[in-house]
Every structure is written in C-alpha cells, then in structure tokens.
C-alpha cells in the first residue's frame, strides 16, 4: 500500500511543481510577467515626468505669447517692434558685438589649442584651467573687476570713452566664450589627425600661418560653427556686463522697454527666445552633418 502511494504523490507533486515556481520553464515567464507589468507602470511614470517637464517648459512661453497678443489691434506688438528703432539698433549692436567676439575668440583660441595638442601637451591642464576660469568668475564680478581695472586713473583708461567701453565689452564677451570655444575647438582637433596634416603640409612647403588657415581651420569648420552659434546666443542675451558698461545692447533694451511698451516687451522676449532656439537648432544640424564631413576629410 505504501509503495504505489509515494509514486502517485510523487507524480502528483511533480505535476503540481511543473508549472510552479521551481519548474525550469516557469521562472522566466512568471518574472517576465511581473517585470512587464512593472515596466508598464514605469512607462506611465516616465510619461508623467515628461509631461510635467513639458508643461513647465512651455507654460512660460505660452504666457508670454498670450500677453504679447493682448495688444490691440491683434498682433500689433509684433509689427511695432519691427518699426521700433531701439529694437533694430540694439539687436544690431549685440549682433556686431557677437560676431566680433566670435572672430577674436577663434583667432586666439585655435592656434593655442593647436599648439597644445601638437607640441605642448604638458601645458594642457594650465590652458584648460584658464578657459574654465569664467565659470569661477561670473559676469557680474568680471565686469566689476574690468571697470575698476581700466577706469580713468589706470594706464589703459578704456572705461572712460564709448569706444573704450565697446572694446572692453567685446573683450569681456571673448572671455565668456572661452569655455565653449576652447572645448569645441579641442574636440574638433581630437577628431582630426593634426600631426599627419601638419607634417604633410610642411613637407609641401606650407608655413604656420598657411597650415592654420588653409588646413586646420577648414577641418575645424563644424566645431567652430557650433562654438560660434553658442557664443552668439550668449552674447545676444547677455545683460549684466552690457548694463554695467552702459552699452546699448539688446538685453538692457529689453529690460527697459516694458516701462512704456509692455506688449512689445513680451514680443521681444519671444524674439529673444527664438534667436537662442535658432542658434541651438543650427548647432544640432551642424553636429549631425559633421560626422560625414570629417570622414570625407580624413579620406
């Protein structure tokens, strides 16, 4: 009697255990079901996070748009800014400052980054440290130091004249562009074989100016462009330095225009956002095209 029973119970147990938690086939299916459910719950959670971020991103923009459209007649805030000479001249001023900043920044950073990569890698930490200093010295302190260093009593009284202040403003912006520009150029240099390019150019008889201008610079085109657009976006939106140097730049103008023209101010804020947006999209587009270009130049 006792004999068949264990066998029966044995099979019964086995039969029961088959689909149970210890069966070989059951473990994955069970935990997979659980993890699928938790992944489903997870996805809802991530969508929720995204939604909050989305709302937080867009509500202020929508609020601005809504306010700017309250002007009567409809859309008049936008037509007004186009005929507003203050807008045109301040934006023009900031763009010129931005372009000068980019040119000077490229002219001084490209040779430096090139030499550090090619000949003086031991100087790299030092140069990097300098280019990161603008993060340690925020604009408000930079302008404070600059105005006091170059005031009327100093050897180089740039703070005394309009021209001097324009020079000082662009100089400060070049400093602000250091971290972005240096990084962009350095990344660009890493992607090309500057050693071979330099040696090849030299063996063909090129001098240093020619190597930098005709060989290195064209190969850095994409990184320079992204650094340039970022710098431009920063300069056009910069408020602190321009204000304390009393320069007729765009951001200070935007700050005061609202006293007399509130709707225009909202419209201008959106325009300013649009400029930043455009710069970032251009950077993204350039970045996307860059890979193929580098491949082509490397042959």
């Amino acid at each position, binding site marked *: 009697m006792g004999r068949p029973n264990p066998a029966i119970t044995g099979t019964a147990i086995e039969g029961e255990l088959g689909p149970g938690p210890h069966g070989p086939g059951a473990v994955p299916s069970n935990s997979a079901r659980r993890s699928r459910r938790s992944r489903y719950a997870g996805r809802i959670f991530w969508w929720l996070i995204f939604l909050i971020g989305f709302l937080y991103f867009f509500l202020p923009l929508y609020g601005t748009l809504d306010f700017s459209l309250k002007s009567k007649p409809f859309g008049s805030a936008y037509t007004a800014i186009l005929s507003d000479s203050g807008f045109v001249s301040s934006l023009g001023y900031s763009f010129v400052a931005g372009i000068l900043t980019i040119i000077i920044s490229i*002219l001084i950073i490209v040779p430096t980054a090139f030499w550090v990569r090619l000949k003086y890698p031991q100087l790299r930490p030092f140069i990097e440290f300098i280019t990161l200093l603008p993060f340690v010295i925020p604009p408000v302190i930079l302008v404070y130091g600059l105005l006091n260093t170059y005031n009327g009593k100093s050897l180089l009284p740039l703070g005394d004249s309009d021209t001097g202040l324009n020079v000082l403003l662009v100089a400060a912006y070049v400093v602000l562009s*250091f971290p972005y520009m240096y990084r962009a150029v350095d990344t660009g240099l890493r992607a090309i074989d500057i050693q071979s390019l330099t040696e090849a150019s030299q063996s063909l*008889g090129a001098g240093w*100016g020619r190597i930098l201008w005709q060989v290195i610079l064209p190969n850095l085109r994409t990184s320079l462009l992204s650094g340039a657009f970022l710098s431009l976006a920063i300069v056009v*939106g910069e408020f602190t330095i321009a204000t304390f140097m009393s320069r007729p730049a765009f951001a200070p103008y935007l700050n005061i225009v609202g006293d007399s023209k509130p709707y225009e*101010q909202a419209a201008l804020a959106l325009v300013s956002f649009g400029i930043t947006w455009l710069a970032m999209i251009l950077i993204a587009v350039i970045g996307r095209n860059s890979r193929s270009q580098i491949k082509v130049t490397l042959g």
Partner: protein
Amino acid sequence: MTNAALPIKAPGAPVARPVRRFGLAWLGMVPFLLFAFLFLVAPTVFLVGGSLQNAKGTFTLENFANLFTPQIMQTYENSLEISIVTAVIGGIFGLLLAYAVISGGLPGILRSALMTFSGVASNFAGVPLAFAFIYTIGRAGLFTVFLKSVGIDLYNSNGFSIYSKIGLEVVYLYFQFPLMVLIIAPAIDGLKKDWREAAENMGASSFQYWRRIALPILMPSLLGTMILLFGNAFGAQATAYALTGGFIDIVTIAISRQMRGDVLFNPNQGYALAMGMVIIMAISIAGYSLLQRRSERWLK
C-alpha cells in the same frame, strides 16, 4: 590677427626635417595668454588686491572680517539657499527627465526634442526669462489667473510671490534642470543595458536596481553636475535683477548695488564681497572637476 603674429614662414620646406623649424612657433599662444591676462586675470587680481586693502591702501584683512556681519551673512545665506534648493531639485528632476527619454521607453523623437530644447532653455536665462515668468505666474499672470478661476489663489493664501526667494527658485529651475539633462544624458547612456538585465535575472526589483546599481554608478556625475548647477545659480545676476528690479537680497545683487554706487560700505568692502563669491565658486568648480574625473572611471 593671429596669423600675422605667427612669425614662421617656410620658403620651400625641406622634406627631411619637417617638425623641427619652430623655435618661435609657440608665439601662436601669446595672443591668447595676453588676452586672458589683460581681461580675465588682471581684473581678478585687482579685486583680490583691493579686498586686502583699506581706503588708505594699507594691507588689512578687515574687509573679510566685516563679511561676517549679520546683514552680509544673510545675503550669502539667501544666495546659498537659492542655489542649493535649485541645484538639488533641478538635479533630481533633470535626472528623471533625462532617464525618461533615454531609458524610460518613450518614443525616440522625444529624446532629440528634449536635448535641443534643453540647449535652448539652459541658455535662456536673464531678462526674457524673468518676464516670461512674470507673464505666467506673476500677480496677473496667465497661470495665476487660471488657478484663481479654479479656486486656487496663488498670491493670497500661500504668501507666494514671484519676486521672493521661492519665486526666484521657480524661475531659476527653468535653466537649471535643462542643464542637468544636457550633462547627465551621456552618463545615463553609459548605464549598460546588460547591468539592468543581469540585475533583473537575479530577481532584483526596479527599486533594487536603482538603489544598488544605477545610483551608485551615476552618483559622482550626479553630485558633480549638481555642484555645477549650484555654481550656475550662485553666479546668476541678470534673471534676479530683471525679475525683482534689484530688490532681492542675494550676493550678485549686492555687488550690483555696490557698482551702481548705492554705497552701503566702502569699495574695498565691495571687493571682499566679490572675493567671497569667487572663493565659493572656486570651491564648487573644483569639486565638480574632481567628481567628474571619478565618474569617468565607470562611464566610458
């Protein structure tokens, strides 16, 4: 300009010895170093020097000692509070948002959209940002009015004001967490799928995976980036200035007041105020680069 400054001109370079003829080539670095000295180092040195002098020009540490008055300490405290709060909240939310679009199973297009947008928003500080928030959650803002219509009075019941510390924090977050998204995204990309699958196969729950694997690996980059966010908020001036018209008690605004000539104390005191800020910024950036180096160990 720089190319003209480069002195080496090679007329018909001999193939035999290519990379030798540039004893003077390092001159290419001079414009940069000179520029950095004139417009970055010199002004800083000036502030350092000024902060260590009294009005008569003799050496003193008095200006720094005077920073520890209740009024100035309160100014620093406000700045620290705003920076820490926005760094932590912005950091956590930025991490969640970045994770949501990278590994949260959301459509891939949202990822590139978020990245582009973060590039814009992290640079969208200053005047237009301040106004955008005034139009939205200011006293008569769109969202304030909407909340009122559903029975929530933002301004009366909670003592909320966009011109206060909390208001400033809400506004700062707009550029804080996009910066977090941008910087932390590569680190999240570095979390290998295998690690998660391995953890799941061994029966780890989502929580355990985060607690034991993902967070410890992300921690250095997470902390490092939060420190960067801290510095980002600590040094911000334009947004606060435009939002409050210069009437909020934080360090950058106190320095602005000093510059405007609303003299509360002597100029040397102002330099010390600025130096105190530079010191805090320097510590935070040093902490950032230290943690950044540590995080590179895992995430390649």
